[in-house]
């Protein structure tokens, strides 16, 4: 049986104002949460300090020292940027030559595998940036 990933912890309550932490049932018996849910051995769930009685802290351990609210706090970060560049034509004098494009990253590295039509390049740009 697949073990639940830590990030997929079950929620005890919907966003209480108190800090919520992730807890893991490390004992051999299930833990009965005060929301009438039963957490199996090995299961990770989210609850406030008050929801996990001190008497159970040997079999229910806190997974992180940082609260879930803190973990989910929005941080400033760089969003990857890309732009569309037209490829140099094989024959610049040839008006009939179809224009081809690349999507390039912040370093000018070509991201696409094959040369693209403008429409396809715009579509990839949208996919990568939205």
């Amino acid at each position, binding site marked *: 049986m*697949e073990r639940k*990933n*830590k*990030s*997929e912890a079950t929620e005890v309550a919907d966003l209480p104002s108190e800090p919520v932490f992730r807890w893991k049932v490390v004992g051999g018996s299930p833990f009965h949460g005060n929301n009438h849910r039963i957490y199996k051995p090995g299961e990770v769930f989210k609850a406030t300090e008050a929801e996990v009685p001190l008497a159970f802290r040997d079999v229910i351990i806190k997974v*992180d020292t*940082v609260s*879930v609210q803190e*973990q*989910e706090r*929005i*941080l*400033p*970060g*760089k*969003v*990857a*940027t890309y732009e569309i560049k037209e490829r140099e034509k094989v024959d610049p004098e040839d008006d009939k030559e179809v224009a081809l494009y690349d*999507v390039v*990253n*912040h*370093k000018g*590295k070509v*991201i*696409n*595998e*094959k040369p693209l039509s403008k429409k396809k390049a715009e*579509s*990839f740009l949208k*996919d*990568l940036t939205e």
Partner: protein
Amino acid sequence: MSWTIPKIWEGGDVWILGGGPSVAKQFDIPKVVVQNVISGTYPLSAYSKYMAPIHDKHVIGINVAYLIGDWLDMCFFGDVDFFLKRSEELAAWPGLKITCSDTAGKQPWLKFIEKDREHIRGISTRPDRVSWNLNSGTCAISIAAWTGAKRIFLLGFDMNLGEDKRQHFHNAYERAPVTDEEKLRKWMGTFDRHLRGFEFIAEDAKKLGIEIINVSPTSEIREFKKVSLNEALQ
């Protein structure tokens, strides 16, 4: 909302850079450089120039691999603990950052892809999902597949310890060599768990017409052809 992987690398080669110790050997990184990176004297980016042969390839870096350089196209991680420890430097990295961690995925500068609950092992059947396979590196195979890769090269997918008993070609996680018997057993158990997905990945890759090549000649993975980096680049 889950991000849909665009088919940007259709028909091409995609390289996934994992963390196994074989990476240093494959790129002929001098031992003194490796030692200095492991001791923290040199940053991980000291490896970058040795990896020049793949700078122009389509590369997905797993976990801290993004610290090697901004020539990597994507950084992928699945573990929220990794995010909590690395969030600031990860936020500053200019490339495309992707995660399947629902906690980390709330950051607007990260692309979030949900785990495929109906296809936990193997390669996801949907372009907006990844099969977890209990490991970030193997999970990224779903991303490579959905970009349209025809061939996927795995780097540092050793699933065993190196000659110096380390798990990685760096020491970004500050782990000592595994010399203790008990710890060794624990790590072997972890590698065993990580190996379980490959049977399913191989099966799915065959159906999708994708060739997966393991660029770690000493790897424990049995499902794919193993080659050296020189052979892979030919």
